[in-house]
């Protein structure tokens, strides 16, 4: 499974696919989310594989 570390500290798992497919599957707006894998920023079309660990950053701020 793919593991995602969310900005609020939660951890989610899901199956493989492109990054955009994964974000839409998890009901996240791809415009508002940036994702890194091993510190490298990923593109919407990048393939995410089983066992990948992703760090999710929301572009949304308070105020």
């Amino acid at each position, binding site marked *: 499974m793919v593991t995602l570390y969310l*900005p*609020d500290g939660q951890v989610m798992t899901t199956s493989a696919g492109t990054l955009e497919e994964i974000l839409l599957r998890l009901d996240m*707006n*791809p*415009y*508002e989310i*940036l994702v*890194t894998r091993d*510190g*490298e*920023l*990923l*593109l*919407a*079309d*990048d393939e995410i594989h089983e066992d990948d660990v992703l760090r999710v*950053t929301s*572009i*949304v*701020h*308070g*105020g």
Partner: protein
Amino acid sequence: MPVLCGHCEKKAVYVDPVTKQSFCGEHFSAWFEAGVAAAIEKYHMIESGDRIAVGLSGGKDSTVLLTVLAKLDLDAELIPITVDEGIGGYRDDTILAATRLCDKLGLSDKLVSFTDICGKTLDELLSRDPRQACSVCGTLRRRALNLAAREAGATKIATGHCLDDEAQSVLMNYLRGDLTRVTGSFQTNADTLFLPRIKPLCRSTERETVAYGLVNRLLTDLPECPYTKYALRAGVRTGLGKLEYKNPGTMMKIVTGQEKLLAKLGPREGEVTKMGRCELCGEPTIHRLCAACALLEKLE
């Protein structure tokens, strides 16, 4: 096949959704910095010898703003100012991030707190009703930044507002039916009384701004402000974010459309409302009390 940078053979880390240009980290950073420099030039934001007070919260936008301003070849002095609103479990971490960034850039950070300007923390001010958090915080933060910038001898104040914030403001004026703001028809002499504010990220999207922070490893994991859930803009922001995803460039069109509207309306004729002074603090205002003092009086 991975998408490659349009300028070299490296894997792309960012694709501009409007122009479809692809960039590796290095070329994305150069493109982003050039965009900020172009906005500064287009809107004549910075003049030689300026002392720019930079609002530095330690969050994503202001971290990127200060980093890029420090990197650009500006003939201006940067004075980072951090406002400590007094938000338990949140602010200490972001203040630490701000201090670390200033150390890294060789700049000296000035700290001003809500306790300094009104004797109470934001948590204390909101103890009875946290729902108005963002308006209270925004008003007092502006006050704190103005005072600290003036004390530091600044000539301008730079904030991390980006294109998304600008588009949200335009849309909110329409949603409120606020024709005065939409047409820019309320004129005061505020420009001569307050330090001018500049927004060097005003043509950079929030997504580009945060991407710059990630690519350059400027951002650390920080807690979210506990009052974010009360943000007035939340609905507008979510809606605009969905539109931007489906129709890239929507926010730029909203902002440039507003600029075109104001240009078409031409120079506004009519009376300029002269600002007086707040009865309590002496700050410029068109009312008996300035926004900050009126707010504090209401919260008492």
